């Protein structure tokens, strides 16, 4: 998670103390990624060490601002897409990948239990969204609603993927098993013709 770049972005608007940075970071990302002061201090120390941030002279408590290198680093972050090529290890993908080849596991039940759970999470997120006005007025509300939307779309994608998995597994179960194949992992009595 880009706490480092996030802090550069915050310091670009004005110099801040460590506690302000922490508070602003949380506020402007809707409180979805809370930071502790230790993370903030450590990150600030590294940014100073790397010459991207400097202390405002004779500020007490210490306030920090961007250096020219810091501004360049931030500009680079804004202009570079977030790399998606290395997927994070995802417990659900691993679970399903193992389930389809494991004997005696009912993949349909795993899919349904997960769909219910993800749908429940999606419903909770939607309630938080419903608390915001349809036309958000403040920049903070806009930031928060965009973060929520991101979580909403991710949850939706997971439900759609689970629907897809269910259909794929049902189709695979219809194919006659070859003698060398493992025992069928799914309930082959499933009526998928309707």
């Amino acid at each position, binding site marked *: 998670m880009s706490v480092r770049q996030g802090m550069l972005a915050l310091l670009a608007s004005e110099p801040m103390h460590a506690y302000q940075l922490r508070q602003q970071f949380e506020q402007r990302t809707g409180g979805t990624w809370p930071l502790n002061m230790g993370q903030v201090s450590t990150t600030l120390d590294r940014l100073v060490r790397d010459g991207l941030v400097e202390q405002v002279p004779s500020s007490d408590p210490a306030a920090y601002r961007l250096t020219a290198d810091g501004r360049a680093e931030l500009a680079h972050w804004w202009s570079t897409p977030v790399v998606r090529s290395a997927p994070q290890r995802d417990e659900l993908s691993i679970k399903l990948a193992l389930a389809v080849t494991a004997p005696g596991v009912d993949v349909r039940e795993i899919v*349904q239990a997960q769909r219910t759970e993800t*749908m429940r999470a999606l*419903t909770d997120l939607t309630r*938080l969204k419903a*608390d915001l006005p349809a036309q958000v007025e403040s920049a903070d509300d806009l930031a928060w609603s965009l973060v929520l939307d991101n979580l909403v779309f991710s949850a*939706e994608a997971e439900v759609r993927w689970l629907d897809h998995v269910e*259909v794929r597994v049902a189709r695979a179960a219809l194919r006659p098993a070859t003698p060398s194949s493992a025992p069928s992992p799914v309930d082959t009595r499933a009526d998928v013709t309707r």
Partner: protein
Amino acid sequence: MSPRAVGPVLLSARGVTRVHGEGPSAVRALDGVDLDVRLGELVAVMGASGSGKSTLLNIVGGLDVPTSGTITLAGEELSGLDARARARLRRRSVGYVFQDFNLIPALTAAENVSLPRELDGVGGRAARGEARAALREVGIEDLADRFPDEMSGGQRQRVAIARALVGPRRLVLADEPTGALDSTTGEDVMRVLRARIDAGAAGLLVTHEPRFAAWADRTVFLRDGVVVDGTGRRAEPESLLTGTR
């Protein structure tokens, strides 16, 4: 989110089964479905094509009759009524919202909304007043004199929601109401539907889009005509996102 008052059961399905055809080729479109929808509650039904969700909606709305089981609507059991009484109860209690809006193109928004009330036997003047009020509830009173083809998809669907809940109607049956709308407009329509239900109605929503089903209080999943799972009633606030405001 502010707590929502959930009222008495408005719609109740018990052991609802619908079989098409006979003998070995018979298909059980629904098989022993139990479902309650309370006043103030929106319930989403999800399931793959052929899972029975449309059949359920048709039976609940009195457009189809179960092979066995009962539907109770506003305290009256549908199967205990003759066809005429059933039609009357359906007309006065239930409104529909469809994917393709189903507005009458030659009538204005206000006329589309007042039509069901005129069919109820309410005088034209009173019906028009109720239609205006219903359009105000969905935020488009200023479009009352527009024809459907002068409105956007989202506006047309708001008219349909107003029509579904005009007068004494308290149950809205929505069949893929966001299917013809883009993502943001679909969300606006769900917000309006949600607000109308919170204000004192009940809804059954059939959709294949998880993001719109999430506007419901809960989702039930149908598979091969059977309710296989559901998200349950509302979560307690403390189980929502931790660390958020």
